[in-house]
């Protein structure tokens, strides 16, 4: 299939921003805040439906950062200080691991607006990948980052199951930490083997389709090992990836092509997106084509909502054009 979706936290629309700012200054009630979140969630779901995305998310508007639902709700950790979110002018709260990680049932399901999800569409959910979580956390309990990664993978597995039971058909694991590597320190084969094992634990016994979404870094740097990761699809940030290098590999899995740049306000031309997508597809699937998804390179939350909405429409249109070519 040729499909499309968004890949993470969507920006809060203006009205919601205003209410959250007012709430932050004690100028509005919790009830009003909740009402505003609901309204905005309806809006961002509708935008995805209108654009014709193949999988729809709830927009994750409540997520203060990718790790926060866990930072705030898991036992064994506490919220630490603010830290820069990779190379963005955005900050996340560091999870500080102080004891064995233990999950309170379905952390993510609880903060997801399941009742607002559209009935006749396929649903997608997004979780932090075990490697990124372990890398960004401050580990004061486990013997090593590796051990922490495996412990978190177990927690994630229960999340994956509860999301799947709730009706989510597609689960994305966001793994910027795996490819963000500005100091160009080599990532060892052993480490990639550990990542593979952690992913296996994360998604064991699930029917949902899964994707490892990498961003903020060069996907080609984890090739060819990533081709063997036990997920259905591999997500690639094409604004950070060495495209030439990427095209030298043959894929036997689906790909999520991050061709829409969530870190610039310039709206892409769908024809150029289609052209580049076709070039990649031809190169990585020399004999047998697999499923291809068109998507943003990372969370669209870096943009004001209006611009993100325009980009969501481009994703829908580009996917339609691409699809016609393969019919």
């Amino acid at each position, binding site marked *: 299939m040729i499909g499309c979706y968004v890949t993470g936290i969507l*920006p*809060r629309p*203006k009205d919601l*921003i205003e209410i*959250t*700012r007012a*709430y*932050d200054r004690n100028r509005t009630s919790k009830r009003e805040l909740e009402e505003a979140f609901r309204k905005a969630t309806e809006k961002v779901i509708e935008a995805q439906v209108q654009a014709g995305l193949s999988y729809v998310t709830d927009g994750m508007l409540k997520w*203060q*950062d990718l790790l926060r639902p866990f930072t705030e709700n898991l036992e064994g950790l506490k919220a630490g200080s*603010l830290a*820069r979110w990779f*190379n*963005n*002018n*955005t*900050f*996340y*709260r560091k999870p500080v691991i102080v004891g064995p990680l233990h999950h309170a049932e379905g952390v993510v399901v609880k903060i997801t607006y399941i009742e607002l999800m559209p009935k006749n569409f396929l649903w997608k959910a997004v979780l932090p990948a075990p490697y990124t979580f372990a890398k960004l956390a401050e580990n004061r309990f486990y013997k090593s980052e590796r051990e922490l990664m495996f412990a978190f993978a177990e927690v994630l597995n229960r999340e994956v199951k509860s999301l799947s039971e709730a009706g989510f058909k597609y689960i994305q694991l966001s793994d910027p930490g795996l490819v963000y590597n*500005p*100091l*160009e320190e080599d990532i060892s084969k052993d480490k990639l083997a550990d990542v593979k094992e952690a992913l296996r634990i994360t998604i064991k016994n699930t029917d949902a389709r899964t994707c490892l979404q990498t961003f903020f870094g060069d996907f080609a740097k984890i090739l060819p090992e990533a081709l063997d990761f036990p997920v259905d699809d591999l997500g690639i940030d*094409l*604004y*950070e*990836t*060495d*495209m*030439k290098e990427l095209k030298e590999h043959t894929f036997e899995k689906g790909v999520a092509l991050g*061709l829409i*740049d969530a870190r*610039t*306000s*310039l709206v892409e*031309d769908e024809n*150029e997106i289609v052209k*580049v997508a076709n070039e990649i597809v031809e190169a990585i699937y020399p004999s047998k084509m697999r499923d291809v998804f068109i998507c943003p390179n990372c969370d669209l*939350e*870096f*943009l*004001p*909502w*209006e*611009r993100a909405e325009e980009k969501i429409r481009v994703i829908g249109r580009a996917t339609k054009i691409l699809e016609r070519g393969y019919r």
Partner: protein
Amino acid sequence: MNKLFPTQEIGSLAKPAWRVKAYRGETPSREEIVEAVEWGRILGLENLEALKKLLEKPEKTAEYRKAILQWSALYAIRFFEKAGLDIIFDGEQWRSEMYEHVIRNTEGFKFLGYVKSFDYRYFNKAACVGKPAYTKSFYVEEFVFTKNNTGKMIKVPFTGPYTLADWTFNEYYERKATAQIKDFRQRKSYARREFIFDLIKEVLRPEIGRLIEAGAKWIQIDEPAATTNPSNEEMQLFVEAFNETVKGFNCVFSLHNCYSNYKILAKYASQLRNCSQLALEFANRDATQTGVGETRIGYNELKIFEENGYQGNYGLGVVDVHTDFIEPPELVRDRILHAAKIVGNPNRIFVNPDCGLRTRKWEISFVKLRNMVVGAELARKALQ
């Protein structure tokens, strides 16, 4: 400066409520007006009746707003003088904020709206939609006013090119590069360079030229975003941008950077040309008990700058701007003495808060600065 450990501020001071409201054309509350008058008396300002009248009858005119800016700048100048600082400015009272002030006064930009910084905090982010053009000066009037109202040495805070570009969507140059460069990654990186160097050439250098003409002797380039992208390519870009900005001017330049990765910055600091001082944040990382030596964990990274061969001066952050904790003079003294030991030559150390004191109330800021000045004096005595 022949004195050891000269004291300086970094930039912003909180804007008093009366300044914010009156500037918007609203009447400050009675308490706010009383507060204005009280501070005016503490700072020894004259003609406070005139200010009181202004505040009681706000107008929505350009002249009125100018008068409010001047009053509030004058307050900040006297505030720093009274605290006893050697090197001052006006607490950036003329500026809405370090980023917005420059972007709003430069052509080629459009604000797109708020994007998330963290939690329920956002910042108003602009896009560069046309080639940046310098149509009017944005710092000169403020500088001249400061110069005319103080006898102290002046250091002008100046938002740097790397930060302006990093905090802005780069639409114009990315669109421009579309036809030339097919590869997305290369296109973005090329467009980023073009943007930064145009900004320097078209806007920042002309403004520096005008500041120097108006009598500026020392400009501090503020680059909070300096280590946001720690890759070698980006750090080289940051260094090149700094060097290009200050190249050839007959003026003292320095750099301020805070809440950043100093391990990275230290590696590149010695490549900054014509940079007389690095003003850095350390107090925020440090313990609060007195003592010289191991206690001073916050200053460990100073060593890295030395090890990497940086030879310029330091603006040593000895006051934490993110807490109301009042640093005792003895703590300030010990931080200075500890740093002097690491650096070896005490003449290379200037003393300042970690960053602008914008988030602190004036009462707190005043005592913090006062103690900083006393602490510097204690450090001088200790070395005599």
